[in-house]
């Protein structure tokens, strides 16, 4: 009993009274106005589908992984999406190790509802063979530090991780043509998930029996708030989910006001996530360009074909642009997404050629072609020295 008291966080009467009295004058203890969000930082790991989100002092890591499983009987042509939360006692001494607490379950379900019920992730594109094998996408959310407003932070972490996740490409092959072949990411570029829109959770806290309302409550504000409401909206202003579990009652006008505010914040947060994801994709493409460059550079003697630094940057942007297009358009089985038809190496019609010639192809990213858009004559000449491209034409 005493040990538990020593390990929990305590709030003084002084703090409680001060926060309440300051809020009645529209002052928050961290200097924000009641409708301000804290600073949002989104970072990504080196692996696809890992994100790290910081909102003020709150810190959450999101990890997405995929597995091929048998689909549920009632939905034979849909993949699955599951959210798992991990509340470590390191984040907050109030979190107990082992069994997930009430709040951990609520958080997981709330994010799950926002993503699933609004059909944000396209489930049918996760199907490989109807009734036999589909992708099961798993989102793990690790809470590293609890500075308040875990719901919004975890939701952003889940979105950012889903947007950067790439599942390996699968085709049917084998002797009977029914076996699922998972292609090595080195050979075939993994595909991003299809995300139709981004449901962003915005949390409000109510104080003094609904008199005062703040957005994005801190840890201290959460400790003394009377009630909480989370609205999940996308940037178009569509309400995907609203959660108001117990606590102080609030009037309808306050709720509509909150929803209007939340719509504004959702637009803001969506653009922040998009920017972060775009810059991640640029950096990712840049990594690829460098690797390819190192592979072919020693063979090149024609000065025209040596890429300058800014050209590499443009290529990377171009590549990133392609990824964006990929994520918005649906998957076309005839062509490998993102590769112009005339330069497709791994087109289905050419598949025999690939099998035969795969030894001579030394592993570089297959669908990377810098000269596909507009090819200047000098480049055409120089392209003949690329052994891979030359043999394919």
């Amino acid at each position: 009993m005493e040990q538990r008291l020593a390990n929990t966080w305590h709030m003084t009467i002084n703090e409680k009274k001060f926060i309440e009295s300051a809020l009645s004058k529209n002052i928050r203890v961290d200097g924000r106005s009641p409708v301000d969000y804290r600073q949002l930082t989104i970072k990504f790991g080196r692996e696809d589908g890992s994100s790290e989100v910081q909102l003020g002092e709150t810190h959450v890591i999101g990890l997405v992984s995929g597995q091929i499983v048998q689909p549920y009987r009632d939905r034979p042509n849909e993949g699955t999406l599951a959210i798992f939360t991990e509340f470590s006692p390191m984040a907050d001494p109030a979190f107990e190790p082992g069994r997930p607490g009430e709040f951990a379950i609520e958080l997981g379900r709330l994010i799950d509802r926002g993503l699933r019920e609004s059909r944000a992730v396209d489930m049918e594109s996760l199907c490989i063979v109807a009734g036999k094998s589909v992708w099961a996408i798993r989102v793990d959310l690790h809470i590293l530090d609890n500075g308040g407003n875990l719901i919004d932070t975890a939701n952003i972490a889940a979105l950012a991780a889903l947007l950067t996740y790439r599942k390996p490409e699968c085709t049917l092959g084998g002797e009977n043509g029914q076996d699922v072949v998972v292609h090595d990411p080195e050979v075939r570029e993994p595909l991003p998930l299809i995300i139709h829109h981004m449901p962003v959770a915005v949390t409000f806290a109510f104080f003094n029996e609904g008199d005062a309302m703040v957005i994005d409550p801190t840890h201290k504000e959460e400790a003394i708030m009377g009630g909480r409401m989370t609205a999940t909206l996308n940037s178009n202003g569509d309400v995907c989910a609203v959660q108001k579990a117990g606590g102080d009652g609030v009037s309808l006008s306050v709720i509509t006001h909150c929803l209007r505010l939340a719509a504004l914040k959702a637009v803001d947060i969506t653009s922040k996530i998009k920017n972060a994801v775009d810059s991640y994709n640029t950096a990712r493409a840049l990594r690829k360009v460098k690797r390819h460059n190192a592979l072919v550079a020693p063979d090149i003697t024609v000065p025209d074909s040596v890429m300058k630094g800014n050209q590499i940057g443009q290529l990377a942007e171009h590549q990133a642009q392609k990824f964006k297009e990929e994520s918005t358009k649906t998957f076309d089985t005839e062509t490998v997404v993102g590769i112009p038809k005339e330069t497709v190496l791994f087109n289905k019609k050419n598949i025999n050629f690939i099998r035969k010639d795969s030894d001579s192809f030394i592993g570089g990213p297959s669908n990377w072609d810098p000269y596909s858009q507009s090819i200047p004559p000098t480049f055409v000449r120089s392209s003949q020295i690329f052994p891979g491209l030359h043999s394919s034409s």
Partner: protein
Amino acid sequence: MDGQLSAPTQATSLFDQTVIPGDIIVDLPSVANLRVGSGLRQDCFELLAMKVGTLRYKKPNKYWLESSHKRYDPSVEDTILGIVVGRNSENFLVDIKSSSLALLPVVAFEGGTKKNIPKLEIGSLLYVRVVKANHGTNPELSCTDASGKAAQFGPLKEGYMFDSSTGLARMLLSTPTCPVLQAFDLQRFKIVIGLNGRIWVNASTPSMVVLISNAIMASEFLSASQQANMVKELTDQLQTRCSVR
């Protein structure tokens, strides 16, 4: 105790330097008597650092480590801020950010007797002094100074309390006055700093309290001039906001 004792040669280079666990501070046979503070440990004939921190030395023979943590390691005669979390017949149980709860005897107040026990609610904030800090037992606190006078100790009313690292608290308490405090008009607010990394602030208006507390929290890793600039900027911001309203 040798008053003229000069520091041993291999340690002089380490004074006011950062040391890491396992660093040998002093070879003991070279020194007669030592007074060892927190963060140091004797291992046979060596004095070793037990954590990362800055080594401090005070003439004639005092050695200790200063470090910045979120947790507080109690040591005797520190003045700290504690939160009452419970009580039994003998003691108030006080949270002081250390690994175990501290005990504040109900008679450890000025003129305190068994029949005259102050009423302290759970959640009250107290300015207290550490009396005993031994390993394996709960630290003991007192609300009086060594001579039994109240001397500013006791419950703090109103105001706002926030947490900081122990390093920031020590920085604020050091002399000359820390630039961030100097930048404010010291007459216009009250501040109590506990060495355990808790700071209590009170001023005439809530906005002033918020301003001071945020300036202090932001000042931990800033230089003197940066601190002054930051305070000036924050004050300007506050004024423009007030004038807009």
